[in-house]
């Protein structure tokens, strides 16, 4: 029995971890690398989820293909938005917050006007894993794998490819990057497109598990913000660690005290994390690394 309960806890952790990482990663790229606080992040996820659901329901394409449609649709959407609006907001951190809030209002309501109050939901594939009297959704556990894969892929893209180096260089010093032959406009656009694609991926992956309504984005926004801040400046490592840290807190407190306690514990942990680690977990990590170097 104790083993089964440990499994319960593990699965709940994986579930929370996947949710936090996937909710955060697109936002983290756009915030961490481009200095845009995207309050419409949840609505980018909405685009991914809706495109996936609609192409599955209306076109009858297989789920994986529908998810691909979701990702592509969100990417295209992100590119259009970047060209129309977002590129005017680089370097205007707080203004970007207000504008994207406006975008979020418009998107939710337009979705409602165009698609109505809900869409028929896709069923969750794979069924459950049973152990003892318990069972857990296999799909939701699989999402943890998807989260880790996503992080790994991003790590490779941003540190091992010329594109990644150019993108990081552009973010650090746009002018110099331009003088090195980098089309910085395109770099910003590409980075934003990647952030959008990740939001689309999140929407696509969660489409079979969540209710399709125009305000579904709100489900993701709070966790995403908290994790970005707790993660700190180093986007990818920060997101993984914040996902791990907050996922653990969420799983344990939910397990002990129920969903409400889990939620409150998550937010409270975030406040304390920000207060005592003003540079996030990665800031702490750098301090520790520096100390170890000193000791050697």
């Amino acid at each position: 029995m104790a083993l089964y309960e440990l499994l319960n806890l593990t699965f709940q952790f994986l579930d929370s971890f996947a949710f936090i990482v996937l909710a955060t990663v697109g936002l983290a790229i756009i915030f961490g690398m481009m200095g845009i606080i995207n309050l419409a992040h949840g609505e980018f996820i909405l685009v991914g989820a809706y495109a996936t659901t609609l192409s599955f329901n209306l076109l009858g394409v297989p789920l994986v293909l529908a998810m691909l449609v979701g990702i592509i649709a969100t990417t295209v959407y992100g590119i259009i938005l970047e060209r129309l609006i977002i590129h005017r907001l680089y370097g205007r951190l707080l203004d970007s917050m207000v504008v994207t809030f406006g975008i979020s209002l418009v998107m939710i309501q337009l979705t409602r006007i165009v698609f109505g109050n809900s869409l028929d939901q896709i069923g969750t594939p794979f069924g459950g894993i049973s152990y003892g009297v318990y069972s857990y959704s296999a799909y939701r556990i699989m999402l943890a794998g998807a989260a880790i894969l996503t992080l790994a892929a991003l790590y490779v893209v941003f540190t091992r490819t010329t594109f990644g180096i150019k993108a990081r260089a552009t973010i650090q010093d746009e002018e110099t990057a331009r003088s090195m032959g980098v089309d910085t406009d395109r770099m910003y656009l590409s980075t934003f497109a990647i952030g959008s694609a990740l939001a689309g991926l999140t929407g696509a992956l969660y489409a079979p598990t969540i209710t399709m309504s125009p305000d579904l984005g709100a489900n993701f926004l709070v966790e995403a913000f908290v994790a970005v801040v707790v993660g700190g400046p180093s986007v990818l490592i920060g997101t993984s660690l914040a996902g791990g840290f907050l996922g653990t807190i969420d799983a344990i407190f939910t397990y002990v005290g129920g969903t409400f306690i889990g939620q409150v514990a998550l937010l409270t942990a975030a406040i304390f994390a920000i207060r005592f680690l003003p540079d996030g977990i990665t800031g702490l990590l750098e301090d520790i690394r520096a100390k170890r170097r000193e000791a050697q």
Partner: protein
Amino acid sequence: MATSDPTVKTTAAVDETGVETDTILQTRGLRKQFGGLTATDDVDFGIDEGELRCLIGPNGAGKSTFLKLLTGRLEPTAGSIYYDGDEIGHLPSHERVSRGISMKFQVPSIYPDLSVRENLRIPLQRIADPDTFEQRTRETLERFHLEGTADETAANLSHGQQQRLEIAMAMTLEPTLMLLDEPVAGLSVEETAEVADLLRTINAEDDVAFVVIEHDIDFVETIADQVTVLHDGAIFREGSIEDVRNDPAVKRIYLGEEE
């Protein structure tokens, strides 16, 4: 108290706390580490009341770190700072300023979006009665050759005017010790001469002690008698400008071959 580095000259008498009596500022074993990097290494540095001292050294010698330790922007890893007999190494910046230490940054860091008058008001209102603001502003502008700029936005001043405004703001607080980080970086010959003149006048008239970090060795020559050379975070040489300039070791690490 003997200093660990034999090249440091200690000329002043020492009182029972180990702090030299006419010394306004004294550091003891001041050290700052950033992770594995020791930016400032056991520095014992002293400056007398009314002295004008220049601090030179190659890039990365720890000059800026040292200055930041003095102003309180950085917390020392070890060691202490005595100012006017009190240990101030752990006081926040603003309290050090209240005790009479003023600082001018490397880049002119005035408030660019405020007018000159408003810029001056910020230090002024800390020490003066509101009724005297107008008059004191006028006096200050005159003294620092900024007449007629009172209502300009500070960003619109020339580089030299900005440097002077910043010194004026620092001086408004009537400090006893002023820390200047490269006060003539990027100034023209005339402007440099003007600043040198200004510093000497202030030093003489107001009895303010100066610690000046500077790259321009010619400028150093025109203003300072005593020079401290920092290297690798530690004091490398201390002495008159001629001694230092002719020291082969200093030449090797810093000045390079003269043509």
